[in-house]
């Protein structure tokens, strides 16, 4: 039963990933990514990480993807030209990706990590629940927690600055820059 769930999640994730890379229309890519994220959330559930799965769906697939959807709609699709200006890129990219996969697999499978090959230790009840995550977050990783919130603040301010409305002088200057 678990295997079926795993393969379902895996196929969804992989399919979504390939669709993101392969589809021409960026809007479709965004939707494919949503599928991918939801599949991953399912896999997280299989790994007893309930809170992370919930966060994935609510934050990632919910808020972040909505951002993507907005921008994709605003920007619209671009016509990616057929011709590749960088010599060898089309050839090397899949090659390197494959090489990367093979290496990582070898590293994983060939390593002498104990617990590979089995499911892992029996976990206590409440593992991965919000209470446990919250306790660990606020007790052991408090500094990281605070730093992350600082980072969020920075990002928000940065975004406002980057995309905010310009004043009169700057508008004229940017007009000159682009003309």
């Amino acid at each position, binding site marked *: 039963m678990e295997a079926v769930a795993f393969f379902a999640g895996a196929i969804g994730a992989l399919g979504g990933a390939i669709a993101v890379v392969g589809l021409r229309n960026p809007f479709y890519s965004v939707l494919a990514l949503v599928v991918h994220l939801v599949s991953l959330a399912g896999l997280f559930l299989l790994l007893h990480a309930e809170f992370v799965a919930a966060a994935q769906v609510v934050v990632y697939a919910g808020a972040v993807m909505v951002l993507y959807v907005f921008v994709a709609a605003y920007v619209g699709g671009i016509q990616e030209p057929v011709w590749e200006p*960088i010599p060898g*890129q089309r050839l090397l*990219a899949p090659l*390197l990706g494959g*090489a*990367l996969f093979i*290496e*990582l697999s070898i*590293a994983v499978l060939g390593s002498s990590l104990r617990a590979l090959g089995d499911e892992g230790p029996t976990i206590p009840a409440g593992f991965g629940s919000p209470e446990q995550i919250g306790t660990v977050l606020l007790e052991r990783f408090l500094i990281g927690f605070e730093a992350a919130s600082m980072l969020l603040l920075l990002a928000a301010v940065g975004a406002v600055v980057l995309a905010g409305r310009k004043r009169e002088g700057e508008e004229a200057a940017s007009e000159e820059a682009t003309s």
Partner: protein
Amino acid sequence: MSATTYAWLVLLFPLGGSIVIALGYRTWSGRTAGWIGTGAIALSFVNAIAAFVQLQGEPAKARHLTSTLWDYANAAGLDIKLGILVDPLSVFMILVVSGVSMLIHLYSVGYMGSDRGYTRFFSYLNFFVFSMLLLVLAGNFVLLIVGWAFVGFASYALISFWYRRATATGAGMKAFVINVVGDVGLVFAAILIFRELGTFDYLEVFDRAPGGFHTNEWTIVAICLLILVGAFAKSAQLPLHTWLPDAMEGPTPVSALIHAATMVTAGVYLIARTHPLFELAPTAADIAAFTGLATLLVAGSIALVVTDLKRIIAYSTMSQIGYMVVGVSIGAYSAGLFHLMTHAFFKALLFMAAGSVIAAMANRQDIDRMSGFGRAMTFTSVMLIIGSLALAGFPFTSGFFSKDAILSYASTRGGMYEIFTVLGYVGALMTAIYSFRIVFRVVAGEPCSEAEELAETGHVVHAEPENPATGDVEDTDVGFPGPEHHIAEQAPTMRMAMGALAVLALIGGVLQIPGVDDAITKFLEPTFEDSALAAIQPSVGDEWRDLTIGGAIAVVGIFMAYLLYVARPASTAVLVRRLRPLHTFLVNKWYFDELIDVAIVRPALAVGSFCNRVFERLVVQGLVAGTVDVVRGAGGVVRTAQSGFVRSYALLLIGGFTGLGLYFLLSSS
């Protein structure tokens, strides 16, 4: 105070004078600089006399006093001190140098009066006197070379004194380059001496020399030949003589001081000083003597035909120094040095008189245009006659006693050296002829226009300033001669100096009359007591015989000059026509300049040009530019990675990461 202290003071005053004049360059007005300079040399002369008196107070055996101011270099076997040697030879030289320099400074106060570079002149002149004194007082070879080089510089500075004249600067450079050739020879000689004997100090070298060398061993001959290179360059002997006639571009006092009385005698002093080495290498000494003889004859022959007044006197100097070189090379040390002294007197006097005549001619120096100054410039004419009498060796002048003493010694030594006596007399005949050529041309005959104007109005004739050699127009500002020309009759300082020298030229001979006294020989004896050659002395009778022959030749020469230039003036033109090839050869100074040009100057220029065109461009530039090109090319290749494409950067990133992973995978398996 001891003799050495006085000797240091002798050195101090001219140096101090030079520095003081130079530092106050803008403050000295009028003739102040001239009086400061003259005063400094006068003080130096007084101290030289004091040193002389003190030295004579020492017992004869102990008259080699050394004094060191400062240990200059003391390492690895080298022991070079700033030290002087006060012995009869050096005291003799400083007396002559400071005495004659004092009189020439006095003369220059008047002569250079209206030159815009007056102050600079006296600073240079004082520095020259300091350098010359340093040269003769030096107690080791290193300090000698220092003084030698300073003198060369001072000579250059003074020859090119009128620096805006192209001929003057060219002559200065020529003199300096030839002097440097001599310097190199001297330096090599010093190095060889150090290598063989282990010291630079005179007294120690002369002590160790007889033990260190066999007679005529090739090392000592080489050392002496290298010393000769230095001596000949400084004393203008063949083949390094071509700079002296051109050095007449300098002002007349410079010619009088440097190129008659002092600098050119430095070579003679050097040979006399290093006589122990030359006596160990008779081959080198003979080479020196024969070179001196050749110079004597060649210079005398040229002096018979050239027409520039100062150049005649210059060739005469070259010839007389030839006599001195012969003298000190064959062993007639006291005779040679005696001639050095008397020559300083009458040659300086001749140059001074010539300066007065040239001033009267508004700076023109061609004797073919001069005549009949006897009435207009009586004083100058008398001085000219006195100087020429002494030069020719007229009986009982100083030159009579000194020049023929050398020839007498030569005949006493006998054998091969008889040649020197015979050819020396031939040279004496030429000397008499050309010296009175000057006198009869300038003094006798119908007064030329300049002389007439001077006699009538009492003013020196005024003419457009121009270069006497090329005729180029000049002005009278700094770098060229001044606007006014001073003749002796109108300048008291000039008369004082010339008068003093005239007296010395006439009576200077009393110091060494054969059979009566031999003051010079006695005085110099402590220096030359170790010499076998100096012990050979001609007998009194022999000497008087040789002196008489010399006097007779002088009179004959004067009479011949009278015939050629006064009684039958047309005969010179006839002679020139009949002997045209010989005349051309002599007028072109035996083509020495052309020879040096072809043999040395052109090849050097060719080498330089080759280096510039080929070596510099291909090798050096090629190397440098090539390196630049390689670096730039490499940079260009590397720069293609900075394409600006984000995706290629990402590719490199992931590719690198993959590679790294591969490396770790492989290394851990």
